[in-house]
């Protein structure tokens, strides 16, 4: 394997950092070299955030080159669009359909674009895209705070990740608080099955 690049994009507070950390820990469990990058601090406060996970023997830079993502996980539709610069025709895009309107839209009284229009724009870059009902699945898992883990389940089910499913679940169990392990494992499974059902 040369390298595998994942870009995680969302809004501060959506749990992109935790999802990226889980991927990184799982990679190390499988004896793989990895770099996980994240942005903390002021940029986080409700702003657009991008994390990345790179896996591969010669990976040195923590950030992904334009057009070189193997997977883009968009935690929010508009943020998925904002990160299309990392996407090429070989990228798999996983997008949550949960919309978080930027305050600019409210201030200018502009409607949030429809998911269909957003998917159209993504398809100009790649045909490989899936919209995930994260909110419904997270609620079903037992907590709306597990939307990020639902998305990890979807990624695992895609079969593209060079990391074992078991390692991911193990990493997940280590990184979430003990009392929330069950809910999170549920969320992971629901995300996993969601893809299997769709494909």
């Amino acid at each position, binding site marked *: 394997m040369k390298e595998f690049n994942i870009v995680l994009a969302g809004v501060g507070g959506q749990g992109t950092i935790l999802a990226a950390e889980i991927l990184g820990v799982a990679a190390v469990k499988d004896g793989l070299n990895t770099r996980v*990058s*994240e942005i903390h601090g002021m940029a986080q406060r*409700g702003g657009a955030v991008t994390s990345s996970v790179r896996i591969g023997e010669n990976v040195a830079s*923590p*950030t992904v080159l334009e057009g070189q993502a193997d997977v883009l996980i968009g935690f929010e539709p508009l943020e998925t669009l904002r990160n299309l610069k990392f996407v090429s025709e070989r990228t798999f895009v996983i997008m949550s359909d949960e919309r978080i309107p*930027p305050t600019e839209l409210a*201030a200018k009284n502009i409607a949030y674009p429809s998911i269909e229009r957003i998917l159209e724009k993504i398809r100009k870059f790649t045909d490989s895209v899936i919209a995930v009902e994260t909110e419904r699945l997270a609620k079903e898992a037992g907590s*709306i705070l597990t939307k990020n883990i639902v998305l990890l389940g979807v990624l695992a089910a895609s079969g593209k990740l060079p990391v074992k499913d078991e390692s991911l679940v193990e990493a997940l169990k280590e990184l979430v608080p003990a009392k929330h392990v069950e809910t999170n494992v549920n969320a992971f499974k629901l995300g996993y099955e969601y893809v299997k059902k769709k494909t």
Partner: protein
Amino acid sequence: MLLKNESGKQMLLLGNEAIVRGILEAGISMVTTYPGTPASEIGDTTSEIASKAGLYMEYSTNEMVAVEVAAGAANVGVRALTAMKHVGLNVAADALMTLAYIGVRGGYVIVTADDPECYSSQNEQDNRYYALLSSLPCMEPSDPQEAKDMIKTAVDISEKLELPVLLRTTTRVNHTRGPVTMGKLAKPSLRGTLVRDVKRMVMIPAHARLMHVRLLEKVEKAREISENSPYNTVKRKGKSQIGIVSSSSAYNYAVEAVELLRLDASVLKLGLTNPLPEKLIGQFLKANKKVIIIEELEPYLEVQIKAIAKDHTPTVEIYGKTAKQYFPRKGELTTRLVAEGLAQITGQKLPLDFRKIDEAYAEVAKDLPARPPILCAGCPHRASFFVIKRACGDKANYPTDIGCYALGIAPPLSVGDLLICMGSGVSTAQGMSRATGEPTIAIIGDSTFFHAALPGLVNAVYNNAKITLAVLDNSTTAMTGHQPHPGTGVTGMGTPSEKISIEKVAEGCGVKFVKSVNPFEIKEATAVLKEALQHNGPSVVILRSPCTLLTVRDRRRKGITVKAFRITDKCTDCMTCIKLLGCPALIIENGKVHIDETLCTACGLCASVCPYKTIEGEEAST
């Protein structure tokens, strides 16, 4: 996790966590810090484990105090470390420059975290120049593994030379996770003994002259260490006549760009960058025809390497960012920027058509709404800015300060006219008020108040400046991750301490008008601010309400759920709430205002500004 003695085991660590592991492996016994992105997790992780690990840590009131506390310990033989963001070293610079003369007895490392691209900072200064300015050794890790390992090396060098050592990181080192192989844990020892030596330790002019000579001698010893350091190494490649010199995070982009372009190039990686290994660099210059320097921010290496070239091999061609700019001098580098620069210098072709990607992306990006960081839903600062604006109006001037409340500049709140550095608000307000004669309200947060506002406040009293200082007290250091401070009653060791009252401090400084009020009590808060503006002399108004993130976390822990506010049918769509507050929980769907249930914290601010009283709900107290 960090406390386990699992020598040889590999773990995924954040750069800042790796530094903490380095602290534990190096036997450092005292850690001092003032939180600042991207260095914050060094202090926070240390704080979590300090008592278990048997070391002392403190959140000092500011970076200068942090350096001085640690310098006291290091001068009685205890190993110490101070961590701060790059601009923190400006605050500590006075101590740093003379501490370099005095030196240390126990190993002392100062971690300075630069922030290329200003992700969370007011500037992107290159702190390697502090190493040159102070003559102190400087190390630059490129990844978490090196960050950990270099702490131990830095302590060794520090004790050998009896000098503090700077460890200069960048955001992409502090906030990158990577596999780190653990070393052995060492036992901290906080027991020091003062060996009196006034000539060395008390810097009066006669002693300083002597110690400056000693410092210059130490620099030459440090250069020898640099010549032989395993962190300064050459990876030669074939018969290439192209050489690349790089350090820190830039090195990662350099090696990937070389790979991308399939360039045949030797690479000199520098990890100990002050003093530079002149001989090693001289040999490298001689061995190559073209030498390309790849570094983030300033041409720190480049300018010095050009000077070395003049002595060793004046004919070598040197490329970088002086003379012609192949790489930008601002912002952070990326593999792409480095590859584009290298392609230009070497004539090698880029294998990726970035322009095509840019064009496709520009088409998408052109109508994307921006999503800058904003004050959270329920943030008490929103209420504070609303009442400040209501009481003082558009004509007043609002110098502001460093903290979440700097986000108050965003419309519709639009409060914040001048921001330089920590504590600048209260002092710039005095100049502004005197020069305009207009009402001037300085904004500051609680942690920043203790960090840097006191001399400014005393100045306002002493010189009778007519300003109002609005202290937005949310009982924490919110922006950097909720660290305690002198007003919170908790220390970095987790022990209780005296809560220092902002009111009493202000009164003690001689301020005659000091009042505190809850900003969500709109009428009362507005009245207090109006009264403060009428006061003839400096006044202080404390707008006190805890950070909403803490409140929400606390509710979650206690299992308390609060009901979001609702917009009733009587809503006239006048949009007043949106126009006045810009709260992210207020959204528009099909031309109607809605409240996002998951974001709303039931602060009730929107209900109190609605002119037709059509927003309903129960205000949650905690």
